[in-house]
């Protein structure tokens, strides 16, 4: 007769295997959902970039009307997706979101440049960008709180767009921006031409950005 200890060991191993399988499945599901979001965002961006390409070939055409509509349509919340990527990385037993995250940050930079260009060429005044600098490789309690505040502001103000820039991921353009704004402490926010290097509350942000309800 098999001893109760062996039976217990067998049952425990079965539970462990089922548990790990379930966790792996859930992690994969979470990663796939995020990959789809990032992919959708990439397609939207590509569509906007095509407009500039079109303008460079046919300079006599005015793309501003369509471009402003596109930027308006691009509702993807950059900070929110980044937050979800971060959550997926932290909350997965088998994390697989590192590359996805870098891809998304690069897209985010493209979007920032696109908006900056639209601001210059089409006098875009509707979108209020907030640049948010934070470290990716070490924990910063205030940054995490700041991210939650930014999420909240973005959900309440349709005219605000947050660009989250992790400064230690070795991305040249982020280094250039960090140098430009003299980022030394975290979190650092740049909005309405002002640099703030401590936790900024929701009320201050909403006032400074002229928050417009969706």
């Amino acid at each position, binding site marked *: 007769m098999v001893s109760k200890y062996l039976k217990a060991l067998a049952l425990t191993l079965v*539970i*462990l295997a089922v548990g790990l399988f379930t966790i792996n499945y859930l992690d994969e599901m979470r990663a796939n959902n995020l990959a789809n979001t990032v992919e959708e965002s990439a397609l939207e961006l590509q569509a906007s970039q095509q407009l500039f390409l079109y303008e460079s070939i046919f300079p006599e055409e005015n793309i501003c009307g369509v471009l402003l509509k596109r930027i308006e349509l691009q509702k993807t919340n950059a900070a929110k997706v980044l937050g979800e990527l971060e959550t997926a990385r932290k909350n997965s037993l088998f994390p697989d979101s590192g590359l996805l995250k870098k891809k998304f940050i690069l897209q985010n930079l493209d979007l920032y440049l696109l908006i900056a260009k639209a601001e210059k060429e089409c006098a875009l005044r509707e979108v209020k960008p907030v640049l948010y600098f934070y470290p990716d490789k070490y924990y910063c309690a205030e940054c995490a709180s700041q991210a939650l505040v930014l999420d909240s502001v973005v959900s309440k103000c349709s005219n605000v767009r947050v660009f989250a820039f992790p400064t230690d991921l070795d991305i040249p353009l982020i280094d250039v921006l960090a140098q430009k704004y003299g980022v030394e402490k975290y979190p650092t926010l740049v909005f309405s031409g002002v640099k703030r290097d401590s936790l900024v509350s*929701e009320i201050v942000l909403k006032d400074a950005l002229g928050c417009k309800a969706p």
Partner: protein
Amino acid sequence: MALKFRAVAAFFLLIGLLYLLIKTVSVYWLIILFNVVLIFVNAVFLFAYIESRGKEKPALKKWPSVSIVIPNFNGEKTLLHCIDSVKRLEYPLKKEIIIVDDGSTDSSRELLRKVKGVKVLLAKKNSGKAAALNSGIKAAKGEIIAAIDSDTFPEKDALVKMARHFDSGNVGAVTGLVRSYRPTTFVEKIQEIEYLISFGFFQSVLADLNGIMVTPGPMSLFRKKVLVEIGGFDEKNITEDMEIAMRLQSKRFRIASAPEAVIYTVVPHTLKHWFRQRIRWYRGKFVNTRKYFGMVFNPKFGEFGMFSFPFSLVADGLAILLIAVTVAANFENVLNYFGFVISWFGSGGNVFGAIPAGFTLHSSIYFYFFTIVLYSFLVYVSHNFVNDRLSIWKLPEIVFYMFIYGFFISFVYFTSFFKEINGSDYTW
């Protein structure tokens, strides 16, 4: 008592150890590992339970004589009720009832003067429960000693059901199913669930594994010859009921369990009293573990030495670590959330703004699912033991027991551990 250096050092050592564990091994793999060990331990209990179901009930050739010893200290509120319950106990032979008043300062002695048919021993000064029990044992004539607390009321068939387990000379003690007496407060109701699981399911299965570590203070039966042989109760021990069980195990006597014998006892009715009682119990466990540590993984002591005792220590340790690690792992999120809420309060936003939108749990949390299934089964089986129906009205205490009780016990363990290291005074 002032905080001593060794307690502070132990605290930082433990925190440091936990931090090191979290940083070197992924915190989530630790959670899984701890859960797996706990699942294994509980699975052993489960299979032991399944194996024991078809076992024949013990049969006695001759009923032993019984002396009931009731130590009392300031038990005026419950003493008469206890004596009444004890007198009503059914037994084929005449029972001897001895009440040892341990220097009560309330009206206990006056009450005892009016009680007929019992032997009363009066101690001049309060010397503790163990000393009172020892003097009662000395005066007792029965072959079996039933030690009963003065705030305990056994069901009338409890004695018969317990005594029949002395079917072999090797059985040194028998325990019953201790239940909370008329639980009304939430704290009492939680203890009702806890007692059903601990003294019902676990104690019964532990008896089959020869692994009982406590002969519950409210009521346990002992073979007098064995008690005399091993020197009676340890008068210096704060949990004499655990110490005597460990000593019986160390002398290779068996402790049987009779979960069919129901014993009601008054349990702490406030959180403060409950916490204080548990501190005493767990400090007692630390003391007795130190005293009998030589039995751990010692094959000489059979399943008690190889499984029950070591795994009870492992389970205790893991329960603390599991909770500490889970809290540590989610501490960052809690901090972030508070940072956000503080900011939100300044914004004049609506109430729903304070609820985090993307609240997600770590994948490893799903492992708790199996532990929850296992515990649900334990709750169900424990109620089956006493033919109690699980009603929807018990849901709050069951939910508390399954999800929050662990945190409470973990906190009690931590406090007991540091109080013991600090050498703080014992409080009842």
